[in-house]
């Protein structure tokens, strides 16, 4: 009973192909919306919002767990928080080297193609950069927490 009082919220993170987190009890959840980071505490009002790209973190079992998400929808319904993300990744499984390379590639594209790239290409590079940054941040925080 103590545990449920301490961690009254249930977090579920799903992608179209996988279940990342399923019904984990937690005391707070932070996730990126399109307009900035939202922090959800127990007894939050019902909410539906579009997910942006960035870091998700939640407190559970006295530890903070980090994830990255990109695109999708978030739903807060009573004390259950559901993130339906297009892409989601557990910080523990992030390959920092790959993220670093992706970041460099995106930056290169932005500096080189800023003038001659089509708007879509620039948009792609910007979101690739945001994804890479989020992944590096998540991985760094994860390893610092351990």
């Amino acid at each position: 009973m103590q545990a449920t009082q301490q961690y009254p919220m249930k977090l579920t993170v799903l992608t179209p192909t996988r279940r990342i987190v399923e019904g984990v009890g937690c005391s707070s959840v932070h996730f990126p919306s399109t307009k900035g980071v939202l922090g959800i505490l127990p007894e939050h009002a019902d909410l539906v919002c579009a997910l942006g790209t960035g870091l998700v973190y939640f407190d559970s079992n006295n530890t903070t767990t980090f994830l990255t998400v990109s695109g999708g929808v978030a739903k807060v319904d009573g004390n259950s928080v559901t993130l339906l993300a297009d892409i989601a990744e557990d910080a523990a499984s992030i390959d920092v080297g790959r993220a670093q390379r992706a970041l460099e590639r995106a930056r290169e594209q932005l500096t080189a193609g800023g003038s001659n790239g089509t708007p879509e290409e620039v948009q792609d590079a910007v979101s690739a950069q945001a994804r890479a940054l989020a992944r590096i941040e998540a991985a760094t925080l994860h390893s610092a927490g351990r």
Partner: protein
Amino acid sequence: MPANLKDLRTRIKSVKNTQQITKAMKLVSAAKFGRAQNNVLQARPYARSLEKLVVKLVAGARGADSALNLLKSGSSGRVLLIVISSERGLCGGYNTNTVKAALRAVDELVSAGKKPVVMCIGKKAFQVLSKRTLPGGVKGQKQVPMQKFVEAPASVMSENENGIFQLGMTFDKPNYEFAQTLATAVETAFGSGEVGEVHIVYNQFQSAMTQVPVSEKVLPLQSGGSEDGVTGESILEPSWSALAETILPRYLATRIYQVLLEAIASEHGARMTAMDNATRNAKDMERRLQITYQRARQAAITRELIEIISGAEAL
């Protein structure tokens, strides 16, 4: 049944070989089936949650919004019927059932005054359907490259009026990207007004033994079922229409992805069952042949003995 011993031996050997092949195919399908089933189960929670969200969102819709167009039937009488079958045979009644369900769906659409355009994914249904002519239509023998359908879905629709065509791609391992591409193309065709409705015929996955061929309407989107446990109004961020634009296309892609996954799982399940039956039949046949062979062999020995004994008696 061959009476002489040599023929029987060859026959037994060939049945044994067939049995080995069907057994191997069964094992391969079983492995693929396991993976496909797991994919279906992994994808289900997302699809369920999204569906609930759509129901909730649509219930809260106010006024006309362009995002809502996905929920309304188009004015065109043309209906895109997507038929999902397998690329390979030897899977029992799987493809036959799909084709039957497709023809039934076509009949229903025609009697409802609609003009169906049939698009086959997986070549098996196309091989059968292309020999047919849709009522008031042309004989379909075309293959439309995936690229073309993705780039100009609307013109593909108008070119194939009342026809049957196959989407040029190998339907083997469906992934979400493919479902998304397909969903976008279908959405564009629907948005252009070239098609009024989109239906999918596929085998719904129930278990390894049972697959149910069904025809479902995917566009206009159906937010089926009543909402349960909705408590008051939710805060919508950033706005209702922005959310609808985020959610509804994803809902369509998820529907299509789910259908593709179920079709693949059904296919492997059907093949596994079919190959299991084939192996069992081969085993039965081998036993029967073995008995015939032993009888024939014994008869030959007895005959020879009689000949020798009667020869000896004659002396």
